């Protein structure tokens, strides 16, 4: 029993775990707001490239573990401009999210979700949760838990083939 507990405690968290969603194959609900830098941000403005809509919170430990992977994913695709990340604050304050990003890095747009209406539109159950939107604006995949840059790239390669 002790061995089993030790095994679970030392295991890496499940990553790139895809899940079903009624949104798969359907147009992604639009998200628009003001990002942490005070600039207007909108998911629909990124048509023509892949967008990973990432719901996160500063208090969420898997989100903290996932954040470097999101940075890596954005950096890998920056030159080509074929994919990016769009963050949505889930059940957290903008001040906490801003402090988290200042501490951890990341330059993708992140918007607040007052009232949780965006999370409701996407059917989010808890952070981190991400939705991969294709260049045509349809939802291609849903991820429950942390994602990795390599895992996302494999899915992008399959979707682009």
């Amino acid at each position: 029993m002790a061995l089993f507990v030790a095994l679970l405690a030392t295991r890496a968290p499940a990553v790139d775990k895809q899940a079903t969603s009624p949104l798969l194959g359907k147009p992604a609900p639009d998200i628009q707001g003001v990002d942490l830098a005070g600039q207007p941000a909108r998911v629909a403005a990124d048509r023509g490239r892949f967008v990973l809509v990432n719901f996160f919170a500063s208090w969420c430990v898997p989100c903290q573990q996932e954040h470097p992977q999101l940075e890596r994913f954005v950096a890998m695709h920056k030159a080509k401009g074929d994919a990016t990340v769009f963050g949505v604050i889930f059940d957290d304050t903008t001040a906490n999210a801003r402090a988290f990003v200042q501490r951890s890095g990341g330059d993708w747009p992140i918007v607040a979700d007052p009232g949780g209406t965006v999370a409701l539109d996407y059917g989010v159950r808890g952070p981190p949760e991400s939705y991969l939107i294709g260049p045509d604006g349809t939802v291609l995949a849903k991820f429950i838990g942390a994602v990795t840059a390599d895992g996302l790239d494999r899915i992008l390669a399959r979707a682009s083939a």
Partner: protein
Amino acid sequence: MRRWLPWMALAVMVAVALVVAAGSGSKGAQSETARAARLDAQIRCPTCKGLSAAESDAEAARAIRAEVAKEVHEGRSDGAILSSIAGRYGSDILLRPSASGFDELVWVLPVAAFVVAIAGLALAFRRWHRSTVGSVTDADRAVVAEARGR
């Protein structure tokens, strides 16, 4: 068999009444607030364990309550509102299974099991009744005739 026909008819009537009661329980004039509260109680809180959207104070539950209230105010039907929520989270967000598709089995199977159980009991009683009556033998008749002749 004729003796059991009324019982069979009664069983069918009870089954039909159960189905009708299950289907009509949500109808009736209600205020928008009461209707929204009833619908909230049928939706699972997405970020909690074992709580409905009506019971939880989580942000996701509050968002669901606000959406349900908005759609009730817009005059949408109960089914359309529940479908709208299930269309975002999946049908498992509903605490009460829908009465269509695969979920319909949840409602149909208990009624079917009840009808089969009643029919089985009717058959069992019939067999039991026959076995207790038995058949009259010549020896039995002789005993009766002798008794009468005394």
